[in-house]
C-alpha cells in the first residue's frame, strides 16, 4: 500500500467497445496524462498499450508517484458473451418442494449452458415471504452436494434459496457447510449477496457470478503483471464496479458480476467529476454506440427491471441506461426515398482510416459534422467538401434526433435538464438539444470514462432486517448507517470523507413489526 504523500497519483483505465482509454491523475486530481488506444480482441494487450502510453507520457520518475491503479474492464461481459473461460459450476437450489416446476437454467441458451457444464441440485429448505420456513435445511443433503463438487472437479458453487432477500439464513448456513467440506477458499456465491426478489433471475445472476471466478482472477493478475512491466509494483489495485465505486481484488474475486457495465458508469461518474454537476443526463458517444445514463446525487441511477446479459435474464443492480446505435463511425446512407439513416452499423475504431474525411471510402457520422464545419481539427475538411449540402443537413438532423430521443427517454420530469456530453464521438452532438437546459461539453470529454475510473470512490452497503419491538425505527436506521460506514472504511475509504448516500427502509408488513433497512455509504480512497 502507498503510504507516503508523494504516492497519491492514480492510473485509471477504462475498456470500451471501441477504445481503451487511460489517464493519470495527480494528488490534486489534475489530469497529467491521457490516451486512447484501440480495444483489442484479447482486451489485455489494449490495456497494456494504453498503460504504456500514459506512463511514457509522464516518464519513469513521475511514474513513481502512482500509488493506485483502477481498471474498468469488459473481461466478464466478454467471457459471458463469447461463452469462454467460464468455470464449471454447481448450482445449488434451496427450496424443495418449491421451485421444482422449473429446472435450473430452463431459459438459457444451450451454448452458454454447455460452456459452464453446470450441474444442478435442489435441496430442502427456503423461506416464505414472511420469513417462515418452507422446510428445515437438511445439512446432509448439502454435504452430499459437496461430495459431488469434489469428486467431479467442479470449480465454483452458486447457492440460491427461496426468499433469501428476506432471510438469508439458509444460504449462509449452506455456505458454511460447503466451506467445511471444500475448504475455506472454495469459491461460493450466495444469491442474497447478488440479486433481489425474483428467484429465477437471481439464480441466473448467481450462477453467472460463480462462473466468472477465474475470469476475475485472470483479469486482476494480468493487470498486476502489466503494471509490474511498467515498473509499477507497489500500487494498490482496484477494479471498477457498476455502481460507480471501486472494489479490491479480493472483493472482485467474490463478486465479479458487479464489474459488468462499469464502463458506462465510469463515464457518468467522470462527467460528474469534470463538470461538478450532481444531477444531469450524461450522453456518452463512442465509436459505435451512444449510452445515455442519469446522474442523481453524483451517482448513476439504477435500473429497476430485469436486465439480460448474454441472453440470460438477471436482476442484479445495473445502471439504468439507454443504448442507441450512434457513434463517430456510424455509417450514413441515403435511402431510395431520399431519407437518410445513420447507423446502427459502424466502422468502429477504423473511423480514422475508413471515414471519408480521413481518406477512406465510407460516409460516416463524423464526415457529416466535419462537412458542416463544426468539428475543427478533425480529419481533412477538403475530403468532404463535395458532399451534397442537403444530405449533410438531413443526416445532421437525424443525428440530433437520435440523441434527443435518447435523452428524452431517460428524463424523469418534463423540465429542462442539464446534459453533459462525453466520449470521443461527442463531437457529433449539437450544443443545443431539445428538452435540455444547459449542454455541457467538459474539457477532456474524450477520456471521461478513464477519469471516472481513476476518481472512483469506495462504498459500503448494508441490508438488514430489524424487529421494531427490539429496536425503534430511528435506532435501526442509525445502526445500519453506522454499519455501512464501517464497511466503507473497511473497504479502503478515508473515514473523514465517508457519507451515507442512500437510505431505504421498507416495512415488511407481512412480518408484523419488521423493517428492512438498506444503506449505502461512500467515501474517497484513503490516500
Amino acid at each position, binding site marked *: 500500500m502507498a503510504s507516503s504523500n508523494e504516492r497519491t497519483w492514480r492510473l485509471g483505465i477504462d475498456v470500451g467497445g471501441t477504445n481503451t482509454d487511460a489517464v493519470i491523475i495527480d494528488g490534486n486530481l489534475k489530469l497529467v496524462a491521457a490516451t486512447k488506444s484501440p480495444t483489442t480482441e484479447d482486451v489485455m494487450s489494449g490495456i497494456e498499450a494504453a498503460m504504456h502510453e500514459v506512463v511514457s507520457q509522464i516518464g519513469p520518475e513521475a511514474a513513481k508517484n502512482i500509488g493506485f491503479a483502477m481498471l474498468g474492464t469488459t473481461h466478464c461481459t466478454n467471457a459471458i458473451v463469447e461463452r469462454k473461460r467460464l468455470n464449471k459450476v454447481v448450482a445449488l437450489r434451496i427450496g424443495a418442494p418449491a*421451485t421444482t*416446476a422449473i429446472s435450473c437454467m430452463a431459459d438459457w441458451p444451450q451454448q452458454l449452458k454447455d460452456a459452464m457444464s453446470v450441474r444442478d441440485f435442489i435441496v430442502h429448505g427456503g423461506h416464505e*415471504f414472511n420469513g417462515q420456513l418452507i422446510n428445515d435445511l437438511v445439512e446432509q443433503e448439502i454435504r452430499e452436494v459437496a461430495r459431488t463438487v469434489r469428486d467431479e472437479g467442479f470449480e465454483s458453487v452458486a447457492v440460491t434459496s427461496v426468499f433469501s432477500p428476506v432471510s438469508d439464513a439458509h444460504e449462509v448456513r449452506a455456505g458454511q457447510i460447503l466451506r467445511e467440506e471444500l475448504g475455506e477458499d472454495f469459491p461460493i456465491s450466495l444469491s442474497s449477496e447478488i440479486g433481489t426478489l*425474483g428467484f429465477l433471475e437471481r439464480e441466473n445472476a448467481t450462477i453467472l457470478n460463480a462462473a466468472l471466478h477465474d475470469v476475475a482472477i485472470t483479469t486482476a493478475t494480468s493487470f498486476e503483471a502489466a503494471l509490474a512491466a511498467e515498473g509499477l509494483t507497489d500500487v494498490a489495485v482496484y477494479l471498477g464496479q457498476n455502481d460507480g465505486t471501486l472494489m479490491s481484488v479480493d472483493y472482485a474475486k467474490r463478486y465479479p458480476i458487479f464489474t459488468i457495465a462499469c464502463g458506462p458508469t465510469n463515464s457518468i461518474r467522470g462527467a460528474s467529476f469534470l463538470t461538478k454537476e450532481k444531477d444531469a443526463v450524461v450522453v456518452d458517444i463512442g465509436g459505435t454506440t451512444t449510452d445515455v445514463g442519469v446522474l442523481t446525487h453524483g451517482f448513476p441511477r439504477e435500473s429497476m427491471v430485469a436486465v439480460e446479459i448474454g441472453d440470460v435474464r438477471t436482476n442484479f443492480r445495473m445502471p439504468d441506461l439507454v443504448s442507441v446505435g450512434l457513434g463517430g463511425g456510424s455509417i450514413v446512407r441515403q435511402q431510395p426515398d431520399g431519407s437518410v439513416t445513420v447507423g446502427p452499423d459502424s466502422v468502429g475504431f477504423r473511423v480514422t482510416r475508413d471515414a471519408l474525411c480521413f481518406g477512406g471510402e465510407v460516409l460516416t457520422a463524423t464526415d457529416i459534422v466535419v462537412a458542416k464545419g463544426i468539428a475543427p481539427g478533425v480529419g481533412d475538411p477538403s475530403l468532404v467538401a463535395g458532399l451534397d449540402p442537403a444530405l449533410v443537413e438531413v443526416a445532421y438532423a437525424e443525428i440530433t434526433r437520435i440523441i434527443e430521443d435518447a435523452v428524452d427517454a431517460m428524463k424523469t420530469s418534463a423540465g429542462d435538464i442539464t446534459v453533459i456530453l462525453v466520449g470521443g464521438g461527442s463531437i457529433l452532438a449539437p450544443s443545443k438539444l431539445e428538452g435540455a437546459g444547459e449542454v455541457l461539453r467538459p474539457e477532456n470529454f474524450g477520456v471521461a470514462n478513464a477519469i471516472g475510473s481513476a476518481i472512483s470512490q469506495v462504498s459500503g452497503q448494508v441490508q438488514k432486517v430489524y424487529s421494531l419491538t427490539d429496536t425503534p425505527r430511528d435506532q435501526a436506521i442509525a445502526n445500519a448507517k453506522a454499519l455501512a460506514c464501517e464497511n466503507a472504511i473497511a473497504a479502503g475509504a478515508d473515514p473523514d470523507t465517508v457519507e451515507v448516500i442512500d437510505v431505504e427502509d421498507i416495512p415488511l408488513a407481512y412480518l408484523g413489526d419488521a423493517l428492512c433497512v438498506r444503506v449505502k455509504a461512500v467515501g474517497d480512497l484513503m490516500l
Partner: protein
Amino acid sequence: MRRRIGIEDIEDMALGATVLGAGGGGDPYVGKLMVIEAIRKYGDIELISPDEVPDDATVVVSQMMGAPTIMVEKVCSGVEPMVTYDEMVKELGEEPYAIYAVEAGGVNSMIPFILGATRQIPVVDADLMGRAFPELQMTTLGINGVKGMPAVLADEKGNTVTVRAVDDVWLERIARQATSVMGGYTILASYQCTGRQLKEFGIHGTPTLCQEIGRTLREARENHTDPIDAVLEVTKGFRLFKGKVVDVDRKTDGMFVRGQAVVDGLDDDKGSQLVIKFQNENIIALKDGEPVCTAPDLIVSLDAESGTPVTTEGLKYGARVVVCGLPCDPQWRTPQGLKVVGPRYFGYDVDYVPIEERAAAAGLSGACGNGKTDGEGACA
C-alpha cells in the same frame, strides 16, 4: 377444431396473454416456463372448442390466486395443479371431461396447460373473463348465477383446503385468507360447470385469441410492420393516447397493487396528459381529466416501438407507450356484469360507456386503417 398446442404456441399465447392482462394478471413468464417444462416431459396439449364438450359433461378451472410477485420468487413445485385436480375428482365423484382457464389474461392463461400436458387432459378454448380481473368472483359464470364451488386450494408443501362458500364473494374472502396463510399464492381447481353452461356463459376462443395476438406481434416485429396496428386489428381496439410515462405511483395495500401512471402526450397528443389508475389491472384512463376508457373494457399500454405490452409493474419513467382501449366481452356490458366489474365497483363515479362509442365521439383511430370509425365497432 381440435388442435395440439406445443411450445411455440405457448410462447405466442403467453405474449398475447400479457396484452389481455390489461396491465395486470401477473407476468405469464413463470407460468410459460412451467408449461414448457411439462410439454417437454409429457407432450403437447389438446385444445378443444367449447362446442366439442358434451352438454352434460363436467369441466373444471385450473388457476392460481394470490400475489403473482410471490410466485415469481417461490416458484411452484409443479404438482399443485394435479393435487387440486385429484381432490376435485374426489369431490365430484367423476373425472372432468376437460379443464379450462378462469382468465385469459396474465399468468392464469398458462396454468391449465400444466395440468393439460401432465395428465393429457384436453383444455377448452374458453375462459370466464376474456381478460384479467383482480377478484375471484368476477366471472361470467358468476354473473349468471353459477357458483365456483367447491374450490380446492393447494400450496407447494402439500397442504390442501376445500372451500364450500355460500357465494363467490365469500369464496374470494375465504380463499384469499387461506392463500395468505399458505404462503401468498395457491393453485386452485374451481368453477366446475357443465358443458352447456360453459357454452352459454363462457367466453369462447380466448386462448386462441391470445395466441393470435402473440403471433401477430411476433410477425410484425419480424417483418418490420407496425406491431400496434397488428394488435389492434386482432383485438378490434383503439389507440387512446401516445406518450411518455412521467410518473408512476404504486402502493401495495392488502393483496392488491393500487396506484396510477401519468403519461405526457407525444406527437398528436402533445400538450395532453393521460392518467391511468390501476388496481392490479388498469381500471380507468383519464385524458386531461376526462375518462376515455374504463373497466370492463381493457386498457393496455404497448411499447411505442416494439408493441410489447407493458404491465403496471413494468411501467417506468421515460417509457414511451401507446395506450390502447380494447372492447371487453359483451356479457360484461350488461347491468349484472357492470355491477361486478364496472367503474363504480372499483370506486369511480363514472358511467360505463363502451370503448367503441367513446372512440367514435373522440374521433380515435381504430384497427381498420387510420380513418375515423363510425362507432359501430372497429371492423364492423
